[in-house]
């Protein structure tokens, strides 16, 4: 049998298409904007872990997103930490956010940094980081068409590219620690200390020793699962994600509400006919909700498809950008897209169900 729901959708193709598109845009917004943020942060956290440190020592209340932490740790702490039993390697890092690169710049001591498993693997140029030298990773070099020996302005300071390292390092731009300290106006200060336990030592014992040695500082284990959830703890992150979801849902909700509300007026007489045939309120509400669910489902599928294409295009155009699109994120976008549409249809559906049949039948 020809479905009244399908027939209604087919009879108003422009309205159906606009509704599908609105739901799709909501889904795209959720997946792409949310995906870029969480993808970039997750990648960053993974690369932090990839340094190969066992612990990270920061000021109390410091964030794993170093840009939110000040440069408060004295560099001379490095030597004292090394004296703690079981500690194998320590390297001080000064992190500073570069707005022009939309990423962090690390001021490092190359020698101590390279004692870690995630050391900088130079694939072009020299492994040198002194004075005004800068090491960038391969993706950054490719994006900015850099070669060793070329000038590069970072944080309004002119550097010369000494080497290009393999991607996967914690950040994409490395400058000498003293240079960044000077640029930052924080001489002899660092943001964080990466710490590696000596081979064969009990990590738990090292952690206990560090905690008792520096009770006033934050010590994080990179094995701590909560580190990977740190993006949710980033200041403003939950609010941002909530806003993206709210805007996306509102978009689906409003467009479906307006489309369905208009449709109900257009179909007043048809609703009267249905009522004269004995259609119950539930039948009429169900008919409108079914139509909305189909529209929302098409919108969700369309949105996921476009998001996948957009994601591939973004990664291709901006190799340093990561767009996360996990199964759970897609599932959440689906659920919220459907929910936004269904909520938008509820009022028109109940309004239609409550219509007086005689008034509806005489509607011109």
């Amino acid at each position, binding site marked *: 049998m*020809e479905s009244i729901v399908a027939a209604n959708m087919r009879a108003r193709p422009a309205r159906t298409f606009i509704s599908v598109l609105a739901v799709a845009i909501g889904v795209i917004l959720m997946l792409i904007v949310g995906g870029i943020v969480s993808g970039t942060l997750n990648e960053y956290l993974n690369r932090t872990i990839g340094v190969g440190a066992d612990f990270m020592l920061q000021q109390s209340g410091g964030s794993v997103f170093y840009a939110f932490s000040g440069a408060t740790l004295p560099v001379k702490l490095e030597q004292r930490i090394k004296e703690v039993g079981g500690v194998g390697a320590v390297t001080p890092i000064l992190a500073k956010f570069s707005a022009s690169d939309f990423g962090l710049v690390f001021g490092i001591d190359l020698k101590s940094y390279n004692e870690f498993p995630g050391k900088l693997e130079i694939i072009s140029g020299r492994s040198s980081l002194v004075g005004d030298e800068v090491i960038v990773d391969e993706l950054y070099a490719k994006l900015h068409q850099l070669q060793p020996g070329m000038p590069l302005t970072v944080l309004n300071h002119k550097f010369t590219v000494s080497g290009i390292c393999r991607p996967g390092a914690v950040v994409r731009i490395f400058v000498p620690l003293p240079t960044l300290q000077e640029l930052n106006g924080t001489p002899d200060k660092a943001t964080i200390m990466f710490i590696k336990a000596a081979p064969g030592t009990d990590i738990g014992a090292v952690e206990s020793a560090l905690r008792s040695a520096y009770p006033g500082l934050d010590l994080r284990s990179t094995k701590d699962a909560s580190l990977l959830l740190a993006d949710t703890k980033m200041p403003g992150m939950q609010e941002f994600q909530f806003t993206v979801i709210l805007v996306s849902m509102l978009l689906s909700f409003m467009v479906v509400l307006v489309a369905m509300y208009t449709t109900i007026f257009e179909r007043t007489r048809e609703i009267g006919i*249905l009522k*004269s*045939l004995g259609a*119950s309120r539930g039948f009429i509400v169900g008919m409108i909700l079914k139509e909305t669910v189909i529209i929302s489902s098409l919108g969700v599928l369309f949105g996921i498809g476009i998001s996948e294409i957009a994601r591939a295009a973004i990664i291709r155009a901006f190799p340093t950008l990561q767009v996360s699109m996990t199964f759970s994120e897609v599932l959440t976008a689906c659920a919220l897209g459907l929910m936004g549409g269904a909520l938008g249809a509820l009022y028109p559906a109940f309004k239609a169900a409550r219509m007086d049949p005689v008034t509806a039948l005489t509607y011109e």
Partner: protein
Amino acid sequence: MAEAPAEHIIRTIDLSMIYRSGRVEVPALRNVDLMVAPGEFVAIMGPSGCGKSTLLHLLGGLQQATKGQVIIEGIDIARLSDGERTAIRRRKVGFIFQRFNLLPTLTAMGNIELAKKIHGNGQATPYRSEEIIDMLGIADKINFRPVELSGGEQQRVAIARALINHPAIILADEPTGSLDSRNSKQVLRILRNLNEKLKQTIVMITHDPEAASMATRIVEMRDGQILNHSGHLTYEPELEGLF
């Protein structure tokens, strides 16, 4: 909703309907007592605004009466909630309208099947769609949409839709009002056949004496009241269209 055995398939007792617009009250029906036996074909005639359509709407449970009873197969639907009246309408009533009222997005078959779907698994046994379609001579039109059908064809589809669930009562609101004389005759012949051969109870509103003459009884209304049940008209229906 216990159904008492009914001598009359339709009975209204002291039925009144008053429309209110702010403080103004407009009586549409005044103490109407009407009885229709099973298998009767009753035509209701009267000038515009005499309450014919209101009476039909109340009989079909589309509206709630201000006062009185509307008893359909032993059930007083005037006392029922909107949902209960809808259920009665679904099970017992088939409507035919002057303007056909087919859903424009569905084909003829879609319209007929929709009525079947709305009826669901009610008590009456629906006809097979093919039986009705053949009986009404619209087999070659079932895949057409209303806009592709003539007025007569649309009305025959509307009759098929009204009949498909085997309703106890057909309520027809000026079924020939939008048709030319040839199609009017065809539709009236169909209604008469349904009444004679299938003993279908029909209540039809009409301005057309020729249409009314097809009925087994004519009820005349004026000013919201039934004047007589005799079949003898006390007004000149031909003058209707002039005013």
